[in-house]
């Protein structure tokens, strides 16, 4: 009988670059490169998927892939220090080895997004897979597949916004409309001030031939959804990414089950229509 592939066995990567994303230093972006070229070729992913990263000896955690498959030769992960494993990763230095398993999950619905106007609503450090989606859409070989791109991205304060260099670049482009907002006014901030649902209502995105992608903390999602519904986005044109407790990433350990589905396997991306059919266990 053929040898069964072992999906629990990580491939090894090296840390090539570490970028601190916020002033309190608990959000860092890690640029990882596969030790083995073969592994790099085999890691084929789409925006919205996640990987299971290992600090060997400490543990493993699921994390959205922040890089786009159009960025060759490396993977980006933005990791928040929340516990012992992520804390241990935060103390790692250049050249240290990180394990990776994946890519897992279903990713953003690229087929449903083709030829549509795209509205992205992102909050806080949930923006990671949205960075992947935006890079993917803006890549020259892909841009023509999508129509107007509107991105609303907000955080508690200016310092908490991720990918500040990318945001600067996107603001300069005319093929993407980027709207940034922070919760409270602060010196030096000349852009919008207000919670995301309020700013979303102000923007009132056009739902004609459009798909909405929402990714952020539960409270942001809870108050943004009615705004999108008011703007006449149908439930099957609004997509969210769930963040249940995941462990194995492959639908076997049981932790991420929501009703009869597994977030790691059938998700993490679900349409609002699909979510309404699932029990509220997320």
């Amino acid at each position, binding site marked *: 009988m053929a040898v069964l592939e072992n999906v*629990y066995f990580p491939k090894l990567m090296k840390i090539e670059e570490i970028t601190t994303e916020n002033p309190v230093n608990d959000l860092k972006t890690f640029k990882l490169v596969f030790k083995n070229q073969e592994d790099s070729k085999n890691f084929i992913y789409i925006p919205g998927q996640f990987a299971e990263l290992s600090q060997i000896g400490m543990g493993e955690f699921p994390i959205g892939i922040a890089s786009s498959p159009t960025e060759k030769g490396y993977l980006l992960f933005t990791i928040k220090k929340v516990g012992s494993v992520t804390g241990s990763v935060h103390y790692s230095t250049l050249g240290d080895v990180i394990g990776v398993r994946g890519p897992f999950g279903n990713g953003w619905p690229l087929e449903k997004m083709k030829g549509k106007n795209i509205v992205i609503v992102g909050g806080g450090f949930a923006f990671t897979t949205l960075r992947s989606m935006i890079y993917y859409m803006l890549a020259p070989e892909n841009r023509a597949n999508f129509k107007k791109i509107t991105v609303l991205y907000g955080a508690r304060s200016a310092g908490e916004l991720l990918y500040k260099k990318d945001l600067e670049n996107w603001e300069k482009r005319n093929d993407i409309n980027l709207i940034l907002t922070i919760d409270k006014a602060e010196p030096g901030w000349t852009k919008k001030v207000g919670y995301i649902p309020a700013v979303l209502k102000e923007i009132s995105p056009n739902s004609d031939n459009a798909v909405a992608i929402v990714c952020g903390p539960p409270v942001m999602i809870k108050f943004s959804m009615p705004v999108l519904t008011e703007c006449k986005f149908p439930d099957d044109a609004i997509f969210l990414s769930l963040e249940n407790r995941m462990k194995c990433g*492959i639908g076997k350990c049981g*932790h991420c*089950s929501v009703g*009869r589905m597994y977030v790691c396997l059938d998700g993490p991306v679900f349409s609002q229509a699909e979510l309404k059919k699932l029990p509220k266990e997320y």
Partner: protein
Amino acid sequence: MNPKSFEKRELQNVLQILAENYDIVGPVKEGNVLKYKKLDKFEDIYLDFVGPSAIPPKSILFPQREVLFTYELENKDVKLHDLSQQKPAKIQVIFGIRPCDAKSFALLKLFFEWGKYKDAYYLEKFNNSIFVSLACNNTKSTCFCTSVGGDPFGKENSDLQLVDLGKKYVLRSFTQKGEAVLSTLKKYADAPKEDLQKIEQINNDARKSIKTHLELGKIHEQLANMWDDKIWAKFSAACLGCGSCSFLCPTCHCFDVIDDRTDERHGARIRVWDTCQFPIFTKQGSGFNPRDAKLARARQRIFHKFNYYPTNYGVLGCVGCGRCICLCPMNSDIRDELAKVKEVKTATT
């Protein structure tokens, strides 16, 4: 091949013959507890028990603690050693499991190989195993296999079956793997017709001895309309959250994965049994817990086995072994719960 019959005192010799080609795992008594272990001395084998063993044999193929891989940390480098492909020297014969337990191994296999990703650890072991069930001449008051599609002489996932005829055993095969094993026992006579007729009779008597008759019908459809029913609060009121029901359930398969350090530089990534009945099972990194309420966990147990399994895989996720009934310190009885579920009037009833 025809079934073989032999005097009971020949059992050790039969096992000795099998041991030439196979490793034998079978039931032994350790103090008061029946356990399944690799047998070196066949006189230790203990087959005089009624109903399923308290501890299910699932740990033979799905250990409570299993090493996934070992690792060494050297300066800035890491070495990993994959343990999923370890092939044992001999195929193992898992001997003397109840038909409900034999069926449970098949249910675990169904789950672990379902969909895009396969669990190499369970499947490698399963594919290297031969299952010999011990038919149930008698049943316990907590047995309800016949209510969930099973039988005291059930054949599902039994390569062979041993039937106790009082003074003799009959060993019959149901699969090609079983045939291969029987062919090594040529020195024993074919079972005469009277023995085979006696099997039928004992089977019927065993079926009649089961006092539980649940008409589950389309229970998964029934449950689909009962998510917010008051019944879950009632069922969970007495629950302590000890997890015994799922740890000792032969079809439960949830697990946690942790890195277990031997010293600063060596260790292993292991998986250990886990249970949805523990409050922190679904607790997220943010602190939010979607199944914070006990009723949600009680509901999850019933839904998983009697709604999600049929919906996702077309089969029930319970073999009716009754261990959860025997072991619950609060005397929760899944049969009562299922009967009460059936009584509830919903949109489909």
